[in-house]
């Protein structure tokens, strides 16, 4: 399907049933962890163009670890991580950033002593030349941030900090965005807002991999979900399929 059809369908908000674009990220048999112990015992995952993929699972299942493995923050000892046709396993984070993958950590994901505007500028650190187009795009996504652009990020509420963190990651115009529990500790209002922004980003053409504790809410709008347990794949399916699966519901979604 050509790009223009996608754009048109997004503009007109038409559902494209069964649409599956080209793969952006393909993980095959990824093993790795911190130190010598393998936390990931062979994880397979695929994120296609313009998809939201949610990773759910119990604590210690390796959800965040899988994300860190993609971003080069821990040793990958086996398997491949192919992004946009290139195996990036073993690359350093700053190289991965340039390859179109941006990552929002769960904690400490802002520069507290810097203003909102400076946080966004730091996100575009690797870009040369004018960044006003990206700034404008981020401020359009997060109008709250534009009003408070000169505020120190450390003085913001939890929800607004999360917006700064996401905004920072978007400044390089990534093709794949990794979000590690973006709604942890947020009020339901902000949670809904973050989820809505995530959907808007997908509709604007981005692929998103999301680790989420609020599994039910996230699977409700996810294109695809993976259930991880003990460092390997347990289930996979569309968001709706996983929500409907009795075993998944009982074991991992709290009944």
């Amino acid at each position, binding site marked *: 399907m050509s790009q223009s059809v996608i754009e048109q369908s997004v503009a007109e908000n038409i559902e494209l049933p069964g649409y599956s674009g080209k793969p952006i990220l393909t993980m095959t048999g990824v093993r790795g962890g911190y130190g010598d112990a393998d936390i990931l015992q062979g994880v397979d995952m695929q994120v296609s163009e313009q998809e939201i993929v949610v990773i759910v699972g119990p604590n210690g299942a390796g959800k965040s670890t899988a994300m860190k493995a993609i*971003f080069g923050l821990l040793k990958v000892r086996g398997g491949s991580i192919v992004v946009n046709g290139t195996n990036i396993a073993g690359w350093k*984070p*700053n190289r991965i950033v340039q390859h179109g993958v941006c990552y929002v*950590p769960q904690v*400490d994901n802002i520069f507290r*002593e810097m203003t909102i505007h400076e946080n966004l500028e730091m996100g575009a*650190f*690797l870009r040369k030349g004018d960044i006003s187009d990206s700034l404008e795009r981020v401020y359009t996504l997060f109008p709250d941030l534009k009003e408070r652009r000169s505020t120190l990020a450390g003085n913001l509420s939890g929800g607004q900090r999360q917006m700064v963190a996401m905004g920072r990651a978007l400044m390089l115009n990534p093709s794949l965005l990794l979000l590690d529990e973006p709604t942890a500790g947020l009020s339901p209002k902000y949670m809904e807002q973050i989820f809505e922004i995530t959907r808007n980003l997908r509709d604007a053409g981005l692929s998103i991999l999301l680790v989420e504790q609020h599994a039910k809410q996230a699977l409700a709008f996810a294109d695809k979900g993976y259930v991880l347990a003990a460092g390997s794949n347990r289930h996979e399916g569309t968001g709706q399929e996983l929500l409907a699966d009795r075993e998944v519901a009982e074991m991992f979604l709290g009944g």
Partner: protein
Amino acid sequence: MPFMEFVNFYLMPGIVLGSIYALGAVGITLVFGILRFAHLAHGDLATLGAFAALGVVTIFGVSPWVALPVAMIFCAFMAIGIDKVFYDYLSERPKIIVVMSSLGIALMLRALVQVIWGVDTETYTRGIVRPENYWGIRIRDREIYTIIAMFAIVGVLWVFLQKTKWGKAMRAMSDNPDLALLSGVDNRKVTMLTWAIVGILCAASGFFLGINTELKPLMGWTMLLPMFAATILGGVGRVEGAVVGGLIVGIVEETSVLLIPGEYKAAMAFAILLLILLVRPTGLLKGKVL
């Protein structure tokens, strides 16, 4: 005591000494904030800067003010070199090992100064300079230049940190090193840039101590405690705080002789350090907790 006497004999010397401390403290705060260790060779790097300027003065017969920029550049490269050979080599090791190695560097730098220039007291210029009288304030030109130069150097640094891409990268590295790396900031470049700036500040600090007093191989080492007190008083990682802290320590040291015997002047920095750590460990301007 008349007010002008207090200003002329206690407050002004305090501000001059405080400016010298401030230049050192700003460098210490940058190393603390960005590289995250206590740099114990700071004072002796300042000594080296002061003597490097003396070397330029004696070899080329130029004014000390011409020698200052040369000494700054020399110290910048020295600091980068020391980092490359020692601190960077130890960067993966526990920080306490880097701190201890900086103590070793301090001794090496001092020995270097003693080998080249001897152990005698030196001066940039001979003769006594009488203070000028400005509306009752008695101050020497070199003292005015010291204060102005401190504010000018720190001012330029502040603008650099606030407005330029690499200045912001330095602040980002101080604020959240992991996130700075995720944003693609090159740790090595920031480290080298920091050392270059630290070298420049050290040279300035040593030079101004030398031009206002004398040059001695131990001059920098004795400044180390007051400079650390100023850094922590102002708040670790805070450039503005280091300036405020430096001025306070300098003024307190000089005015303390009104109340206690002059021999205890040097203990004032220690008293301030102890007090601030007990009362407000983050410093006046809310720096990092050590």
